[in-house]
């Protein structure tokens, strides 16, 4: 059942930014539609069938999400997305246990919403250890072990990085956290539905999930909160006490149903889809390597989801490349695309030099990416990289054998 081969209109560029967001699977939309119209009831209404019907939809979805990560459905609470889930997990746990523990361990390559939550807690007096990553983007387990103290309340390490797609050793991290009696939270927004996850086998206590990264709707996510041994949280949003009191507010039934359906499709198709994407990833990389020199893949290639490539095209600035490849929608680690004028902090954390970070593109492949699209993308990338290298003074110098590091550049 993969009747849908293409979701874009023919006048749209080829979408290769699946880590930013994913198109909603039409099967997900179909499951959601009744809950916008005749099954519109408030899932918390207990006195009539409208409510019961909506509740049934929500609870089925909760079960579908739970099954994808090997959890019990009672351990899944719905949120507005992974950002809220990350906020709730880290702040909630830190605040609840603050009388006994005051230390948090995380990594330098986390998503901004984790880093910002940690900064916020630092301002309130918590201590935070930001673990560095190795050249391949993975954390050093010995460094993690050394960082955890008896004051550590939670260790927050992302499952899959959003820029470079590398997979952290979750089972090993979980084991260390359990031994050291610290909770293990993982931001799994980029991992769920793409790699097998099992909260039991991996000793995960809290896991953040996003709807729109797994072909579900935007505006919905989930947080897995372990019940045995119980993890307690102070809620961010209070009110009617929905979602075990962790997250008040009427649930958006259609969005919950969409997330559930998206989760079920991912579980069912994960193996085949992972193999298909691996082939596409290999095809793209081979195509580029056959026709271009001086390209570097950032982050570990082996411990990586197949739907991600992050490549530095040396001597070509990322934004100018994106301007050229008009038929492709990708994103760049270059400063020029952001307001901050700083190149990607993730790439810098890997030890990628600034000049190489400026030349990087993130290419995301996903459920609706075809072989033909990959071939078109390779052709377009090769053409524009060659064109831009022909006008790059750095490329010219490199060809003349000049060591670019020997030049005293006037920084501005």
């Amino acid at each position, binding site marked *: 059942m993969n009747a849908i081969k293409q979701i874009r209109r023919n006048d749209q560029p080829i979408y290769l930014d699946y880590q930013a967001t994913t198109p909603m699977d039409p099967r997900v939309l179909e499951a959601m539609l009744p809950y916008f119209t005749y099954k519109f009831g408030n899932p918390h209404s207990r006195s009539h069938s409208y409510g019961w019907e909506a509740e049934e939809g929500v609870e089925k979805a909760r079960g579908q999400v739970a099954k994808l990560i090997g959890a019990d459905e009672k351990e899944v609470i719905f949120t507005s997305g992974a950002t809220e889930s990350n906020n709730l997990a880290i702040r909630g746990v830190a605040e609840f246990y603050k009388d006994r523990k005051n230390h948090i361990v995380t990594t330098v390559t986390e998503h901004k919403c984790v880093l910002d939550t940690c900064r916020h807690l630092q301002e309130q007096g918590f201590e935070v250890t930001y673990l560095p990553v190795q050249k391949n983007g993975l954390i050093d387990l010995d460094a993690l072990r050394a960082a955890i103290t008896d004051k550590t309340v939670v260790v927050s390490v992302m499952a899959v990085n959003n820029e470079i797609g590398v997979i952290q050793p979750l089972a090993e991290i979980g084991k260390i956290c359990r031994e050291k009696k610290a909770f293990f939270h993982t931001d799994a927004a980029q991992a769920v539905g793409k790699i097998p996850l099992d909260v039991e086998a991996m000793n995960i206590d809290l896991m953040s999930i996003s709807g729109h990264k797994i072909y579900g709707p935007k505006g919905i996510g989930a947080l897995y909160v372990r019940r045995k041994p119980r993890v307690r949280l102070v809620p961010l949003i209070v009110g009617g006490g929905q979602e075990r009191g962790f997250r008040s507010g009427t649930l958006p039934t259609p969005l919950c149903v969409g997330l559930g359906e998206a989760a079920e499709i991912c579980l069912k198709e994960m193996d085949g889809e992972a193999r298909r994407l691996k082939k596409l990833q290999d095809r793209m990389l081979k195509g580029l390597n056959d026709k271009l020199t001086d390209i570097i893949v950032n982050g570990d290639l082996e411990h990586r989801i197949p739907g991600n490539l992050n490549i530095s095209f040396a001597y070509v600035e990322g934004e100018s490349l994106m301007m050229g490849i008009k038929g492709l929608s990708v994103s760049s680690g*270059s400063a020029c695309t952001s307001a901050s004028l700083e190149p990607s902090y993730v790439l810098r954390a890997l030890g990628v030099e600034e000049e190489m970070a400026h030349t990087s593109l993130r290419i995301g492949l996903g459920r609706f990416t075809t072989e033909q699209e990959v071939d078109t993308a390779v052709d377009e990338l090769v053409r524009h990289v060659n064109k831009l290298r022909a006008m790059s003074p750095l490329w010219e110098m490199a060809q003349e054998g000049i060591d670019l590091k020997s030049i005293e550049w006037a920084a501005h």
Partner: protein
Amino acid sequence: MSYSEKLIDHYENPRNIGSLDKSSEDVGTGLVGAPACGDVMKLQIKVGADGLIEDAKFKTFGCGSAIASSSLVTEWVKGKTIDEAETIKNTDIAKHLALPPVKIHCSVLAEDAIKAAIADYRAKIAKKTEETQVTNKDAAE
């Protein structure tokens, strides 16, 4: 980010890409920016016997705005004296290409590049004049 038609035209059809012989006496070379900052411009001018800039070439590593800014100045300096070329302001470049505020630094870099090329040319002339004087002096003695 949306760019002006003029900017896109210069990015897609850059004028005067290439290199001149940097060791030549009538060529001034300016190399400004830094790879770590994400933009490097190399701008060269060739000055004729009549004192007019008869050719200009550039190569740029940088975003579309940087490429367009350097392409534009190579067009502007041609046919000008070096004194005239020196008066080109970054604000003129930014205005012509309708650069968004975050890209103003690209026009600043282009102005720096032309100034650096002129300075290099002047330094060559000064050195040549000095050498000639020394030679003349030697001859007189």
